[in-house]
């Protein structure tokens, strides 16, 4: 075991720090709407032009082809510099691109990967349906093969940023007669295709906050050449992306939360006094959170160490399940430190909206219960 970085790593770190210092956006990120899209894509373009967009992406797809350790160093510096949480880019960079790299055709790769990396386009994820959330494998959105096209009819829901996205990774049922996991295809869908309609869905964080959508498909025609992997093999294609999402893609967030806890410690020391804190209930809870978030960094390092040997497996659910609940506890304590004023929702609020947002952490991308099923069955070998 070691936490040593080579001289070359340290040069990389210094370069990253210097570039971030000079280039990190100073303006506040709009929480929603076209302004947010412009902000996130603009920031991605800037990172791309600086050579920082795809640190661990293969060189042939426009990345730097560096190791996961470099990626980790980049994330650490990014978090230290207070880099923005450019969520709109997440699906493209962390789902769609790795999936296309792993299973896409040469045409799909050469068309889509450069556009994703350089911040030209935004992607969204059309997996969940009104009647299939946790039971994703039972999804019903139908795609009939007609000539060299798929004709899609049905609906997706909870599609984050569908209203801001150019492309969608879409799971459809191409063979209703096959066993449920064997009749699904993973498709690249152009969001401008006729027959797609959106219904905005407001979320609980603040009045009028439009985060996700229900998406309706009526005779939406998608070229068959947009299927990634084999037709009817979409479940396997999708699982490779989910493994990625639950593993390495979460690293930046994990690292960023250390700074959130330190801001809370500072706030608590100011409001309650440093010496009172040691015996106070808030101090005790904060100490626990500080220890846990420190351990999350260690977990992230262990995942990165394992990933250098083999692709992440079910064991990444240990870190994910832990971290999603830890985020909730961390954000929750802010209210106890702030006290009565925490029932106010100021315009420039750094704590209340993020607190409310954490309610989704144990739901999105596989609920805590589903994560525990995975841990129980696939990590511990308990019977189904």
């Amino acid at each position, binding site marked *: *075991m*070691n*936490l*040593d*970085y080579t001289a070359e790593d340290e040069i990389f770190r210094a370069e990253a720090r210097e570039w971030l210092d000079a280039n990190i956006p100073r303006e506040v990120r709009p929480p929603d709407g076209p302004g947010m899209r412009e902000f996130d894509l603009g920031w991605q373009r800037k990172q791309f032009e600086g050579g920082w967009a795809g640190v661990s992406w293969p060189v042939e797809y426009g990345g730097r082809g560096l190791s996961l*350790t470099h990626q*980790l160093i980049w994330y650490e510096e990014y978090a*230290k510099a207070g880099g923005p949480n450019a969520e709109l880019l997440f699906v493209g960079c962390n789902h769609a691109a790795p999936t296309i790299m792993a299973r896409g055709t040469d045409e799909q790769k050469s068309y889509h990967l450069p556009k994703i990396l350089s911040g030209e386009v935004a992607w969204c994820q059309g997996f969940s349906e009104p009647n299939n959330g946790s039971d994703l494998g039972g999804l019903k959105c139908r795609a009939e093969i007609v000539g060299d096209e798929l004709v899609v009819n049905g609906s997706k829901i909870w599609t984050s940023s569908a209203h801001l996205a150019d492309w969608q990774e879409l799971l459809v049922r191409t063979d209703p007669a096959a066993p449920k996991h064997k009749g699904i295809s993973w498709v690249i869908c152009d969001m401008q295709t006729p027959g797609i309609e959106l219904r905005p869905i407001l979320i609980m964080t603040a009045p009028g906050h439009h985060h996700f959508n229900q998406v309706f498909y009526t005779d939406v025609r998608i070229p068959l050449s947009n299927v990634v992997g084999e037709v009817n093999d979409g479940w396997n294609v999708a699982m490779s992306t989910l493994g990625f999402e639950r593993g390495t893609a979460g690293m930046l967030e994990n690292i960023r939360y*250390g*700074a959130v806890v*330190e801001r809370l*410690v500072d706030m608590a020391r100011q409001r309650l006094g*440093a010496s009172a*804190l*040691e*015996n106070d209930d808030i*101090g*005790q809870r*904060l*100490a*626990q959170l*500080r*220890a*846990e978030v*420190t*351990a*999350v*960094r*260690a*977990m992230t*390092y*262990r995942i*990165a*160490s*394992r990933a*250098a*040997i083999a692709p992440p497996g079910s*064991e990444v659910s*240990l*870190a994910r*399940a*832990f971290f999603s609940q830890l985020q909730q506890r961390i954000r929750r304590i802010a209210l106890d430190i702030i006290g009565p004023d925490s029932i106010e929702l100021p315009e420039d609020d750094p704590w209340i909206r993020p607190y409310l947002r954490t309610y989704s952490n144990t739901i999105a991308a596989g609920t805590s*219960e589903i*994560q*525990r*099923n995975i*841990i*129980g*069955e696939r*990590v*511990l*070998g*308990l*019977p*189904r």
Partner: protein
Amino acid sequence: MNLLPTEEQQQIVDMVRGFLAASAPLERLRPDKFGQIGNPDAALWPKMAELGILGLGVPEEGGGLGLSAVEEALTYIEFGRALVSVGVLGATLGAHLAARTMPDIAAAIMAGTSAVGLATPRGTVAGDDGIFSGEFHLIEANEADFIVLLTSDAIALFRRDEFMGQSERLSMDSHMRLMRAALESGKPLSWSSVKDGIDHARANLLIAAYATGVAEAALAGAVDYAKVREQFGKPIGSFQAIKHKCADMAIAAEVASCQVSFASVILSKNSDESRFHALASRIVAVDAALKNGATGIQVHGAIGFTAEVEAHLFVKRAHLIDFIGGDQRVQKGQFIGADAVI
């Protein structure tokens, strides 16, 4: 950067695990094997000494194997899994404290011929400039020549006879021998404060590593049982109420083990961050041991409430180690006062 054991480190783990499987299986603690009071582990010390385990991390010039905090922590996870008497902690910490200035004492400890008990405060400790007064518990001290005292801000090696009024108590963890005793201006043979070097941080790290082993063993026992015990015609591990409890135990053990690894590397560098990371590892690992110990009993049902399976041993050992040098409340108070390490 690599947070997985190297091949050599894995060999040490396998060696210690193999030794403990043969010489200290958990069954040794069953009432029909040894009894419910006291423990058979004194016999282990000379054998462990032969393998070099007692002086594993002591520098070679001090008579040890000269390995780092990383190897020490890895072996302590194994000690926790096997519920080795916490007297081992006395030996390791005592050998470190003695090695610099008292080579004969260090040699006797590392050879397993002088046992070292532990002292932990029962209340406030007055400790100015290396003179200590207060009321203590002594753990595994009955046959010990020396005692390592751990407080929240100091670690000190004493001759056992510095402690006055030694009187036996039955311990909640009845395999561990317990006494009460006092120091009145007791003068240690050697000591160091939390501010000098990493002696104090090492104690917290090794307690964390041991607790991680306890948490892992409690998890393993619960999972094994959940796979074989059937009710309503299926293994109880197929019920989510049980499966999710096991998953939570696995999460707690993983959190602990990752932070212990991370902290052990930090200590092996003698880094200024040692205290911070050792405290963090102690807080998450003792938490894991306490939780997993308790949950393990529930997963077993009534058999878990008996002395006939191991389930009850883990939570008791977790409570005992929680108090060594100050319980979670004390450690968290220390930790929230510490400077940030980012």
